[in-house]
C-alpha cells in the first residue's frame, strides 16, 4: 500500500540551540512550548487551533501537559513513538500526518525538546545501581553508553568492508562545513580539517570525539495539517510525499542492548526495509533525491544508513563524502546541510526534519537549487527506523 496522505508541513519552529548546560534561564519544558508556539506562529495558525501533539523516544514533555501549558482548548490526538534514540523523529511526523489524514485532528505538531544539561548527558552513565531486563545484558556487562553501543556495528562494518577511518572523518567534516554556513549552528565558525579529526581524542574505537554528535539544549517542532488547509496559509507548503517507519526482525532493542540482530543485517542501520517502502511508495529511486539529511549520532552509522537507502553500494558510502563530495549546494548529493547532530545541535535529530523541510521551502543556509525531493532518515540501529520524502506541494 503506498503512502496516500497529502498532509503538509506548514510551520517550522525552533528555539536557539546551545551546548548542553548553557540553557540556564528556561526549562526543557518551556523550550518545548516555545518551539511549538514558533511553529504555529511561522505557519500563521492560531495556537488554539493546534489540536494534536506527536513526539518520540524518551521525550519528557508529554503532549497532554504541553497542551495544558499552551492553553489548548481541546486535545484530539496525543501520541509518542515507541523505540530508542532518534529513530522515531520522522515517525512522529508520519503519525501527525496520519492523524490529520484520518480526521482525528486538524493541526498536529510534531516536536522534540531536549536539554541534556538539565537531565543528564547522553554520553555519561547516570550512576544507577541496577540494570533491568534486557538492558542488564548490556549495561552490567560493560556496554553502557550510546557511543559504545554504536561503536560495535561500526567496528564490524569497517572490518567486513575494509573501510578506512578517514571515511568516518569525511562525514564529520561534511557536517562541520555545513555548520559553518549556518549561523544558528552550535559549532558555527569552528573549522575542522582531517588532521583535526584524526587528532581528536579517542572516545571508544573506532569513534573519536568528532565522530560523536553534540550534547545540546534546545527544541524544535513542525506543524502538520491537510493540503486543503495548507493552501490557505502564508508559507510554501511542504508535502509529505512519502513516510515510513519500522524495521526488521530482531531489531527491537537493536544496538541499544540486544546485538543479536540477524548476522547478515548486523553491520547496517536497520533502515533498508523502511527505505525500500519510502521509495516504492513515492515511485522514486535514490537518484531522484536532491538533498538528504541522514541522522548522525555517530559517523559510522551515517555510512551504513546511506547504503541502506541505496545511495552507495555496501562498504562504499565513504565515497559520497570524501573530497567534499557532499558539501555545498552544488554537490551531487548534499548531505546534512544544516550541520546536523554533529555540528548544528543534537535535538535528537528533529533538527534534521526541520532542515529537510527548509530545503523544500528554499530557506536552508546551504540551499540546494530547485529541490523537488528532500529526504530525511531518522535514527539508526533500532526499530522503528523512520524516514520522510518531502517535496513542494
Amino acid at each position, binding site marked *: 500500500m503506498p503512502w496516500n496522505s497529502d498532509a503538509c508541513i506548514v510551520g517550522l519552529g525552533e528555539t536557539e540551540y546551545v551546548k548542553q548546560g548553557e540553557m540556564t534561564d528556561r526549562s526543557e519544558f518551556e523550550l518545548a512550548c516555545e518551539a511549538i508556539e514558533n511553529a504555529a506562529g511561522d505557519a500563521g495558525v492560531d495556537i488554539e487551533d493546534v489540536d494534536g501533539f506527536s513526539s518520540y523516544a524518551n521525550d519528557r514533555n508529554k503532549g497532554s501537559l504541553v497542551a495544558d501549558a499552551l492553553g489548548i482548548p481541546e486535545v484530539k490526538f496525543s501520541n509518542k513513538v515507541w523505540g530508542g534514540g532518534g529513530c522515531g523523529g520522522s515517525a512522529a511526523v508520519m503519525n501527525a500526518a496520519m492523524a490529520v489524514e484520518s480526521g482525528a485532528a486538524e493541526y498536529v505538531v510534531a516536536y522534540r525538546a531536549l536539554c541534556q544539561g538539565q537531565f543528564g548527558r547522553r554520553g555519561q*552513565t547516570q550512576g544507577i545501581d541496577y540494570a533491568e531486563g534486557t538492558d542488564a545484558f548490556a*549495561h552490567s556487562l560493560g556496554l553502557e553508553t550510546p557511543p559504545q553501543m554504536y561503536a560495535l556495528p561500526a567496528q564490524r562494518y569497517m*572490518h567486513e568492508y575494509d573501510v578506512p577511518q578517514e571515511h568516518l572523518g569525511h562525514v564529520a567534516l561534511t557536517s562541520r562545513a555545513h555548520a559553518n554556513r549556518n549561523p544558528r549552528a552550535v559549532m558555527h565558525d569552528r573549522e575542522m580539517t582531517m588532521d583535526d579529526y584524526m587528532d581528536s581524542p*579517542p*572516545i*571508544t*574505537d573506532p569513534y573519536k570525539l568528532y565522530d560523536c554528535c553534540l550534547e545540546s539544549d534546545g527544541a524544535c517542532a513542525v506543524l502538520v495539517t491537510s493540503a486543503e488547509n495548507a493552501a490557505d496559509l502564508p508559507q510554501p507548503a511542504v508535502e509529505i510525499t512519502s513516510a515510513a517507519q519500522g524495521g526488521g526482525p530482531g531489531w527491537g532493542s537493536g544496538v541499544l542492548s540486544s*546485538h543479536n540482530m540477524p548476522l547478515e543485517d548486523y553491520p547496517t542501520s536497520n533502515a533498508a526495509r523502511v527505505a525500500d517502502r519510502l521509495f516504492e511508495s513515492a515511485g522514486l529511486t535514490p537518484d531522484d533525491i536532491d538533498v538528504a539529511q541522514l541522522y548522525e549520532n555517530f559517523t559510522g552509522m551515517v555510512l551504513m544508513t546511506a547504503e541502506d537507502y541505496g545511495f552507495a553500494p555496501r562498504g562504499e558510502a565513504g565515497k559520497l563524502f570524501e573530497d567534499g563530495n557532499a558539501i555545498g549546494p552544488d554537490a551531487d548529493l548534499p548531505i546534512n546541510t544544516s550541520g546536523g547532530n554533529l555540528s548544528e545541535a543534537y535535538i535528537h535529530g528533529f533538527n534534521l526534519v526541520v532542515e529537510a523541510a527548509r530545503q523544500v521551502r528554499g530557506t536552508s543556509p546551504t540551499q540546494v537549487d530547485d529541490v523537488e525531493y528532500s529526504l530525511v532518515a531518522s535514527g539508526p540501529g533500532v526499530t522503528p527506523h523512520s524516514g520522510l520524502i518531502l517535496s513542494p506541494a
Partner: protein
Amino acid sequence: MRGTTREEIFPLPEKGIDTAPFWEACNRHELVVQQCADCGALRHPPTPVCPDCRSFDVDWAEVPGTGEVYTYTTTHYAASPAHEDHTPYNVSTVLLDGTEDIRLITQVVDVDPEAVEIGMPVEVVWEDVNEETTVPLFRPS
C-alpha cells in the same frame, strides 16, 4: 567517586522473571542460553516467547563457554567518575560456540585491550561481583 571494584563501576543485573535463570546459572559458573522447549531454537537475550514457533515453553541450554570476538570497542573515556581508573577497557560481543549465531555482550579481560581483534578465540572467565552476582567475562583462549 572513583570505582575500584566492578560493583562500583558497572550496574548490577536486576534478575527478572524472564532473565533470572541466566544469572542464577552464572552464579554456578555455567553459561546458559535460552532454548525453545518445542522447536529447540536458541535465543538471546531472554524473552518469554520463541520468535520461531511462538512457544512459551522455555528450556536453558548450557553452552561450552568458548567463542570468538564478533566485534568490539576499546573504550577510552570515563562515562562517569566511577569509570576513571578503569579506562581503557574492552567491550565485545562474543559469538558463542555451540550456537549458530548467538552473541553475548561481554568484556575481554586479562589482555591489553588494544590487542583484542575480531575473530580472536576467547573463553569465559567468571567474575564474582558480590555474593549474589557473577558475570561472564572472557579472556583469550
